[in-house]
């Protein structure tokens, strides 16, 4: 059992938690993730390591309530426990040698991007961050990004905060102004990453994406997290949990990944509605 030592609600659907997990905290690096089960019989879900404190032995997770499991988790309070917490999994993001990086985060993807931005800053790199949200109410981690970015641009789709538009607008602008980066790292909804990759492509700056397909074991056993890379014209199967979650954005077959991502939509809506009704009954 793993204790929730701190909890903070960031916006109506996004929650931050620090979980006591000393073995995981000892090793975690930016870009890695954990798998948790809220309770006995619960589903295993992957969440990115949004931060870690090696001394206190805690791991920070930031998650959006999208379905049954994240909903159950969001109901847990500080001082309560979760059943299983396994990690760190996946390969850490490659940060060696980077001096000047553009980070593009969208929605909860910003939670995944934050520790990468922080680590780059810690290593003395120049960090430019563009973070985008649908609307002001969904904005998260602005202060945290400000603290670790040399320049921060906040976008909202509806213009209710920051600049109106999607994240591609400011990055196109930066490229037009001739700004250069060693690398672009983008994390967010697949469709956003797809557009960011197309925007970066003409500049030939390397562009990494963080892929979050459906996972079961997260240790390289089930094959459910497979995705296709197109390398030298050949389609190569990779497993996000062991080969990723970061991949070269130019190689990822986004259309396929998006199609696979909606496989269980109907089923999950039911599971979520059931869970909600279940908890309504309890309350």
């Amino acid at each position, binding site marked *: 059992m793993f204790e929730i030592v701190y909890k903070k609600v960031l916006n109506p659907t996004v929650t931050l938690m620090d979980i006591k997990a000393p*073995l*995981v905290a000892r*090793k975690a690096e930016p870009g890695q993730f954990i798998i948790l*089960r809220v309770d006995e*019989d*619960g*589903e*295993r879900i992957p969440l990115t390591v949004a931060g870690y404190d090696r001394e206190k032995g805690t791991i920070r997770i930031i998650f959006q309530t999208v379905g*049954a*499991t994240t909903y159950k988790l969001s109901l847990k309070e500080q001082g309560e426990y979760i*059943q*299983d*917490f*396994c*990690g*760190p*999994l996946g390969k850490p993001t490659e940060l060696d040698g980077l001096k000047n990086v553009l980070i593009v985060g969208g929605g909860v993807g910003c939670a995944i991007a934050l520790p990468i931005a922080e680590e780059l800053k810690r290593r003395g790199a120049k960090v430019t961050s563009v973070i985008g949200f649908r609307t002001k109410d969904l904005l998260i981690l602005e202060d945290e990004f400000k603290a670790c970015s040399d320049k921060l641009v906040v976008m909202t789709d509806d213009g209710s905060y920051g600049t109106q538009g999607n994240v591609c607008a400011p990055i196109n602008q930066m490229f037009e102004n001739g700004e250069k980066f060693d690398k672009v790292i983008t994390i967010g909804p697949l469709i956003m990453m797809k557009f960011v990759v197309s925007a970066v492509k003409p500049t030939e700056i390397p562009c990494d994406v963080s892929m979050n397909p459906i996972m*079961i*074991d997260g*240790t*390289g*056993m*089930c*094959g*459910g997290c*497979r*995705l*296709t890379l197109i390398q030298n014209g050949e*389609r190569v*199967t990779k*497993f996000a949990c*062991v080969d990723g979650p970061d991949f070269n954005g130019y190689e990822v077959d986004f259309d*396929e990944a998006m*199609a*696979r991502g*909606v*496989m*269980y939509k109907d*089923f*999950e809506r039911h*599971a979520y509605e*059931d*869970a909600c009704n279940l908890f309504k009954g309890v309350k």
Partner: protein
Amino acid sequence: MAKFNMSLKKNEMPMQDPVLRGKNFSEVALGYTKELALDEANRCLECKNPTCVQGCPVNVDIPGFIKKIKEDDIKGAYAIISKTSSLPAVCGRVCPQETQCEAKCVRAIKGEPVGIGRLERYVADNALTCEIEKQPKNGHKVAVVGSGPSGLTYAGDLIKMGYDVTVFEAFHTEGGVLTYGIPEFRLPKQIVKDEVNKLKNLGVIFMPNVVIGRTLTIEELFEDGYEAVFVGSGAGLPNFMKIPGESLKGVYSANEFLTRSNLMKAYRTNATTPIMKGGKVIVVGGGNVAMDAARTALRLGAEKVTIVYRRSMNELPARREEVENAIEEGIEFNLLTNPVEILGYNNLEDRRDPKNGFVTGVKCIKMELSDPDEKGRRRPVAIPNSEFEIEADTVVMSIGTSPNPLIKQTTKGLEVNKWGGIVVNENGLTSLEGVYAGGDAVTGASTVISAMGAGKIAAKATDEYIKSKA
């Protein structure tokens, strides 16, 4: 002297009705009653030079334990089996006896062999308590990576010899494939739990949710004071055929399909884990894994389940008994057939059609077996222009696995062969001092009993190694 039962046939295993069982997840084979067991035991001739024992990968004293059944001394029988096998309740259910002990039984020369597997299961299920001898603690610590049959066996042997044993398991539950692969209707999970609990009671410490190579490395285990490490991390990642359409929605690896059903309990109606239900299911492959996936699909409510396999019935690598069970339950077999493409729905008029990207069928080609090569193996070869299509809503790929590279990548100096299997000597020792390995991680996908055998050999070698150091 009517000492032996000279019937040519083994006593039939009582089974759940094939139609009923296709709709539930309860165990299919119900086990011998005492009468059936005694009667079957009496078919054993107590050979002086028992060939069955040679057929058993761990050389269980088969006539020895059968004799105890005849004397109705179940505990005695269990004690004999336990000397060489650590998971009798499991092996009695899942060993491919027809190619091992029973294949060598003299009674099989004329008629059917003695039902050794069924008798083993009878003993294991009925020997309720059994004293286990345990040596006093010797103060040495060993670590085990993975809690599949190889790791459990290794742990069991060393705890009995007085070692402190810790098993690190990546998952939240123990048992490896016994838990998340082999389905409930063939191996009730309670049996696996009982075996694990026995080890816990003996003092083995289980650490779930620890991925060796990530949470801790093998090097760190040694730093933490473990004097030897056994790697029993299993067969690894599922293979795909690399044919078009494998990433369509509704295509699973057998591992994913079975894990969703077993570990995540998707088979329960109130489960939160999604899995495809209903419709037409095609399972590609012919091993135990394929049979399990097919029979699981049936139980999840599939209208029709078809196995597609590129060789013929004789070459099906699955346990014979499970093939027969599958046929009885109504699984269809499309043999000498190989998929060339998985077909999907693609509405070009409406890109937003929710059916887009889902499987609709499989395009296959007919195969024939070539003339035997030098080794006597007959290769399947495609018959030109024999393509045809089978309808399907779900396709389960069950065509083997490749080793997970994690431990190799994170353990300096650990040698693997060109397929990625860990290289070991005859004692299970790897290229690193104090690091042993066994089971599917070494051999590739194999059997429970050979994994167990490897755990045993490595346990013995570990004991000798640690004593020689002291």
